[in-house]
């Protein structure tokens, strides 16, 4: 492993860790659920993404062959994290969690009737 690689790795690792940290910091710090939601779903995607790239680089350099399977984890995360975020926001709206900004008018859930129970 040459110095340049090590520097790159170090930077990637640090960047990843910092973004991961910031995401959780937002989760802890921000004022309402809706703003808190932004922290982890974004910052950590990039955070873990950077770490995964670091891992791929590391094992490609140290191992006997190219290591790209980390891409898969990232792919998974990039597909799933937004869905999670969307559903959590949807749930929060449904529960009408208090927000720093005025909540939008009915999103449909309150107006619904029993007939909407049908699967």
């Amino acid at each position, binding site marked *: 492993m040459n110095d340049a690689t090590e520097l790159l790795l170090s930077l990637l690792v640090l960047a990843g860790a910092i973004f991961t940290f910031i995401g959780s910091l937002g989760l802890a710090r921000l*004022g*309402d659920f809706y703003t808190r939601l932004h922290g982890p779903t974004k910052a950590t995607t*990039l955070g873990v993404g950077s770490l995964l790239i670091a891992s791929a680089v590391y094992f490609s350099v140290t191992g006997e*062959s190219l290591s790209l399977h980390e891409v898969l984890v990232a792919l998974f995360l990039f597909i799933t994290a*937004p869905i999670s*975020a*969307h559903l959590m926001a949807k749930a929060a709206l449904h529960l009408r969690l208090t927000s*720093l900004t005025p*909540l*939008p008018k009915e999103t449909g859930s309150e107006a619904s009737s029993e007939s909407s129970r049908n699967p």
Partner: protein
Amino acid sequence: MNRLLPHPILTPMLALVWLLLNNSMAPGQIVLGLLLGWAIPLFTLPFWPEQVRIRHRRTLLRFSGVVLLDILLANLKVAWLILGQPRTLRPAFVVVPLDVRHELAISVLANTICLTPGTVSAHLSEDRLSLLVHALDVDDQDELVATIKARYEAPLKEIFEC
């Protein structure tokens, strides 16, 4: 397409994923990957009600690039906002009227919004005509809507619907 090879795109994609998983380009793995890439779609055929047609591959690539860039920027921006004064944040719910109708296009749009600058798609209206977006810090709501429509919706419409 046909019954033997229902998803011609999926097969090589899955074979590729297989090789990624195994971190190997051994011929045996390639054969096995192709085999699985052929077999798994056969089994999952019923789960894919309609064919996915991707018309403009170049647009797709460009769109992907834009999104990746935006993710990077968004993260920086959000990081900055989180590290700053939470009280100065100007969160808002914004309604984005939708032009796209294709289910997959709407889904990808919503996902993209979630992945990028300080926005989360919070609710898709029942008629699927508008998307409620929560933004972390908004100057101008209209500008945000316009950006989303231009930067993400338009290419998606092109990719999936034209």
